[in-house]
């Protein structure tokens, strides 16, 4: 009951009238791209509560992001984990996003993008959950739609994901699903500053995201809720802190609770 009340409070805060919002979501990507010829450096840490193994696992994802042109951006990332005691690289991935629809007006827009992700991973496969951004070898294709309306942003995505074995000795367990559907719904708002006077002001954003997965082969699913905070320093460096918690699900997962900490820096017009 207390949990429902807390979620209700966060929701009412996020959807209250007259709020400002950002679409630089912490757990999902918006349909917008980064500026052309710019480079981004993103360092993501996920602290996963692996209750099955009674251990805390740290996953580190260093990522380079490149705004190729006004419509296309590319990411390349490394995947590191300390799951077996030693902190070591276990995989790598690429991500591409193509913005194919833009309807921009002053202080508002509606945009749509298609994206794809491919990853190689040699980590152990213990779980039902499919996650090529960190756990599995495979690919994902999806669409994102983002509406910015008088500073309030709402975004939704839908994707299809398919995995293969993580190399010899790390095959998909017999009977486990190898394909799944992912869906997300995100919103957020700008808390500070109340009024912009300079690019040096620190921005403070609050976000709330719902992240779900459904595996049609065995009818397993999960739905997570992910509240998060974001600080943007000098309009150029992001610090994201997020918590991801399973609301409901019947999957065997690596973690139903996790903490995310990220630093991201954007270098304008360097390429």
């Amino acid at each position, binding site marked *: 009951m207390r949990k429902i009340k807390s979620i209700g409070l966060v929701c009412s805060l996020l959807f209250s009238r007259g709020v*400002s*919002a*950002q*679409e*630089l979501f912490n757990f999902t990507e918006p349909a*917008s*791209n*980064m*500026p*052309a*010829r*710019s480079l981004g450096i993103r360092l993501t840490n996920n602290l996963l509560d692996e209750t099955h193994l009674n251990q805390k696992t740290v996953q580190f994802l260093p990522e380079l992001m490149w*705004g190729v*042109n*006004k419509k296309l951006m590319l990411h390349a990332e490394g995947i590191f984990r300390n799951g077996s005691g030693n902190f070591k690289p276990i995989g790598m991935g690429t991500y591409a996003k193509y*913005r194919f629809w*833009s*309807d*921009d*007006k*002053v*202080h*508002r*827009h509606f*945009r749509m993008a298609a994206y794809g992700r491919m990853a190689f991973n040699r980590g152990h496969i213990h779980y039902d959950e499919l996650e090529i951004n960190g756990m599995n070898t495979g690919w994902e294709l999806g669409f994102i739609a983002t509406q*910015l309306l008088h*500073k309030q942003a709402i975004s939704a995505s839908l994707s299809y994901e398919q995995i293969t074995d993580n190399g010899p000795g790390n095959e998909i367990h017999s009977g486990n699903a190898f394909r799944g559907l992912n869906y997300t719904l995100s919103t957020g708002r*700008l808390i500070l500053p109340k*009024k*912009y*006077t*300079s*690019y040096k*002001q620190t*921005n403070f954003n609050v976000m709330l995201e719902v992240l779900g997965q459904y595996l049609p082969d065995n009818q397993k699913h999960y739905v997570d809720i992910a509240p998060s905070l974001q600080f*943007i320093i000098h*309009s*150029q460096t*992001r610090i994201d802190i997020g918590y991801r918690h399973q609301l409901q699900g019947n999957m065997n997962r690596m973690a139903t609770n996790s903490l995310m900490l990220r630093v991201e820096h*954007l270098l*304008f*017009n360097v390429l």
Partner: protein
Amino acid sequence: MKNLLFVIALMTCVYSSFGQIKSASLTASGLTCSMCSKSIFKALEKVSSVESVDVDINESVFNIKFKKGANVQPDDIKNAVVDAGFAVASLKMTADFPSTQIGKDTHIQFANGTYHFLNVPAQTINGEKTFTIVDKNFVSSAEFKKYKKLTGMKCYESGKSENCCEKDIPVGTRIYHITL
């Protein structure tokens, strides 16, 4: 009668060469956050003709000062905003004009570009004047449609010289459509 109107239309396509664009006021669309605003600011600063940019982040307005003697092309400004991931809602430019007769569909050549006046009454302009570019991707799509209906000229739709323009202007030349 039609021939006479055609001759009059041609006569209004005046060619002259003068002036420099000194400054501009740009309103960008599709953004609210300061990180987005900064990406436009940085892209504008990178344009070779730009000397300085002042910004009102809340209103998404960028006041641009151009370098003296620089070749100012409005497309360079528009492309900087578009490449940053956003759109131009309005672009007003200020230039020094010598005494020039203008009117509806007058073409003038100045500041290394060809400019076509739309929807202006016959008048003489002299000295500093601010004009608005109303070409595609310089205004909202609704405004573009409004001007397209108003002019009905092919060159407005394409942004390049067509048969409706002065014969001296080679077909395919970039033409900026402006109004006061």
